[in-house]
């Protein structure tokens, strides 16, 4: 057999490893910061960039795409070369991929803190960054598929299948969910409106969990866990079966994020059904991972790498059981909008993604630096403080979630709600405090790891290019004379598949999207009208400040909700909402009926409340937004915004963009006047005026409809 020399590129792995640790610390520190803000709401000190609504997307994006993202690339670049017995396809592409991804992260952090956001969770980045992500992802794709093409091992190991699924599906999800029409370089409106936008968002949102936090990490598990335990995976057959099942089932689980909302019922049921089915393939992976250690549990006692991996796989098993359970409507009715969901995702993120990353790092760094770990006991301490951190984080959040859900639904013997929303919120303060302690413990462990890995690296010597000799794969096919031009393509099915997929998706998107999406925005409730220019500007401020992170706009059809907020939400209400603002968490109360009924408050209440929430709601954990009272509305953007809305099918009259600002000022003057009657002097072009206009509009249209029906009766 002929042997060829191959040199594995460790340098790119090193770069991604450093980035993983660095961004992990940043992302988790921001997480701790926002956790503390829920305990001490004054912490934002009136600075927009330090406020929860803007920092929570920074936290989620940083831990998902910066920490886990770099972790994926680190693991893929290391394992793929060894599994394919080939160096990465192209070193320049590797470098572009690395630096491009870091650039995206920096741009993301800056733009999110500036308030440039689409408000679609885990896809908040504005369109120029979305395009950059697509480009860099393609670079990664070419580099990875290129390596697979020139592999010297005919069999494609199961881990690589997981990587390929990640590559293809994330590309598609990202493109579809990011479709938007730009207003300016920093602002765009989602192509989809209302219910449709919600469905696309959570189709994306759940698959971001599936194909960014799960499939690539399962691929990494299938390489690094057997390597660390030095024994083959329990059942290779099971790994193949559960891979194919998992990727075929995952794509339709998304609607379970929208149970009991205005999404059509059949779509909700579809989401539930697929989510339940997902238990099987998910647990296939978990069982396969854990049983790999059968007969080797003594190694787990000794080896800190395996300890991390065992807890990671266990956390994966727990959260993939909990996920389907939460997708049952009766369980979801309790869990949704509460801290239960926060607990659920953190078991997954801290346990599965975090601990698997740490395990891989503790295995990889000594290997690449050709030494042993600097301090075993420090690594062990990291393991225990990390595990304790997860528990101290998750248990109070579960407790808080159940507590709040039960308080929301509690009626007294007279049939009236027992607790105000504020009471259910202040009840959780202790839990929020405990949670931040849990997070701080976990973060402390990460700092220890960073120190330990740094000392490990400095005591060893880094091997930038690992020279090995591998057997050359014999060619089984030789080109024959006179064969057709497409024969080479036929011999390269994966290349062909990817190319075909990209081409068809681009074609499909260009062709389909504009036509039938815009047509579908015909209102189904006649009293639902487009926002006035001032309300539109106010809505954009609501989006900019990330209000949706804590306030839902979705009254579910439960008595406990209609008694608290008013009429339940209907699909037809949201046709002009680009993007939708249903939210996913109620740290504060729902706002869908804020402008009507018993929830309506005077303009002056909102003015003061945004300046100092606790002066009106004692014990509230809402931050203050004083800059809204000092900054002026960006009226220059109004015409462009109206024009984009028209393109999206919102029925503003032809040429309205030119006169929109006149209407805006008229409405603003009226609000300023009403404030004046309550002894508040303010110019009418302040941002707070626009926000008040938007908040006072919420629920008005549907209220008009209900009144009309009453009259007719």
């Amino acid at each position, binding site marked *: 057999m002929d*042997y060829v*020399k*191959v040199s594995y590129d460790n340098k790119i792995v090193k770069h991604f490893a450093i980035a993983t640790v660095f961004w992990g610390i940043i992302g988790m520190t921001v997480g701790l910061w926002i956790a503390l803000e829920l305990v001490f709401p004054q912490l934002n000190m009136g600075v927009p960039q330090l406020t929860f609504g803007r920092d929570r997307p920074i936290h989620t994006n940083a831990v998902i795409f910066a920490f886990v993202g770099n972790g994926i690339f680190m693991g893929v670049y290391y394992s793929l070369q*060894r*599994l394919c017995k080939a160096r990465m396809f192209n070193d320049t592409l590797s470098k572009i991929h690395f630096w491009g991804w870091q650039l995206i992260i920096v741009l993301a952090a800056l733009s999110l803190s500036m308030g440039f956001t689409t408000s679609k969770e885990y896809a908040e980045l504005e369109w120029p960054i979305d395009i950059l992500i697509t480009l860099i992802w393609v670079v990664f794709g070419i580099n990875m598929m290129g390596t697979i093409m020139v592999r010297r091992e005919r*069999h*494609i*190991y199961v881990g690589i*299948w997981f990587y*390929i*699924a990640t590559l*293809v599906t994330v590309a*598609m999800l990202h493109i*579809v969910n990011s479709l938007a029409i730009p207003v300016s370089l920093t602002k765009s409106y989602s192509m*989809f409106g209302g219910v*449709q936008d919600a*469905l*696309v968002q959570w*189709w994306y949102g759940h698959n971001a969990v599936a194909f960014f936090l799960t499939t690539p990490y399962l691929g990494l598990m299938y*390489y690094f866990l*057997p*390597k660390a335990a*030095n*024994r*083959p*995976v329990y059942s*290779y057959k099971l*790994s*193949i079966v559960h891979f*194919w099942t998992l*990727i*075929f089932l995952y*794509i*339709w689980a998304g609607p379970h994020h929208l149970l009991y909302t205005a999404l*059509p019922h059949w*779509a909700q049921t579809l989401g539930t059904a697929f989510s339940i089915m997902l238990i099987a393939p998910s647990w296939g992976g978990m069982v396969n991972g854990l049983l790999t250690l059968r007969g080797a549990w003594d190694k787990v006692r000794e080896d800190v790498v395996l300890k991390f991996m065992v807890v990671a796989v266990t956390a994966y098993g727990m959260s993939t059981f909990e996920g389907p359970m939460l997708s049952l409507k009766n369980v979801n009715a309790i869990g949704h909008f509460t801290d239960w969901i926060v607990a659920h995702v953190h078991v997954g993120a801290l346990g599965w993604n975090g601990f698997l990353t740490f395990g891989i790092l503790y295995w990889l760094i000594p290997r690449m630096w*050709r*030494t*042993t770990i600097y301090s075993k006991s420090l690594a062990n301490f990291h393991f225990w403080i990390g595990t304790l951190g997860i528990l101290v984080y998750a248990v109070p959040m579960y407790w808080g979630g159940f507590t709040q859900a039960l308080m929301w639904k509690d009626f007294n013997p007279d049939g009236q709600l027992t607790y105000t929303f504020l009471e259910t919120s202040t009840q959780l303060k202790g839990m929020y405090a405990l949670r931040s302690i849990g997070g701080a413990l976990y973060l402390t462990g990460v700092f220890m790891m960073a120190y330990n890995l740094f000392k490990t690296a400095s*005591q*060893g*010597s880094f091997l930038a290019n690992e*020279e*090995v*000799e*591998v057997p050359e794969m014999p060619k089984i096919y030789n080109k024959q004379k006179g064969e057709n031009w497409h024969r080479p393509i036929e011999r390269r*099915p*994966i290349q062909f*598949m*990817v190319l*075909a*997929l990209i081409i*068809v*998706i681009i074609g*499909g998107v260009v062709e*389909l*999207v504009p036509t*039938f*999406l815009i047509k*579908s925005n015909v209102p189904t409730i006649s009293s639902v009208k487009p926002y006035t220019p001032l309300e539109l500007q106010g809505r954009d401020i609501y989006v900019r400040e990330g209000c949706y992170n804590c306030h839902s706009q979705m009254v579910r059809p439960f008595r406990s909700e209609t008694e608290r907020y008013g009429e339940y939400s209907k699909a037809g209400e949201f046709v002009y909402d680009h993007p939708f603002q249903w939210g996913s968490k109620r740290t504060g109360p729902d706002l869908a009926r804020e402008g009507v009924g018993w929830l309506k408050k005077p303009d002056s209440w909102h003015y003061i409340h945004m300046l100092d929430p606790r002066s009106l709601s004692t014990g509230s954990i809402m931050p203050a937004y004083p800059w809204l009272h000092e900054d002026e509305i960006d009226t220059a953007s109004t015409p462009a915004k109206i024009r984009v809305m028209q393109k999206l099918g919102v029925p503003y009259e032809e040429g309205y963009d030119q006169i929109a600002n006149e209407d805006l000022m008229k409405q603003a003057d009226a609000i300023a006047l009403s404030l004046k009657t309550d002894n508040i002097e303010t110019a009418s072009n302040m941002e707070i005026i626009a926000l008040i206009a938007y908040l006072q509009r919420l629920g008005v249209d549907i209220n008009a409809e209900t009144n009309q029906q009453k009259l007719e009766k």
Partner: protein
Amino acid sequence: MSVIILLIGASILVAGGFLFAFVWSVKSGQFEDDYTPGVRILFDDQKSKTQPNPITKSKK
């Protein structure tokens, strides 16, 4: 809800791609052997003889 058409279309495209890959992988004999691949990854590649220096001991 017309957006469901887009989502179904996109999902079927990807699922179709996976199906294609699945059929290809089965037909090309990727899964003929469901034992050795799991074991094979455990073996480290043979170090090249020109490799500069062997594993260094801890400096301490």
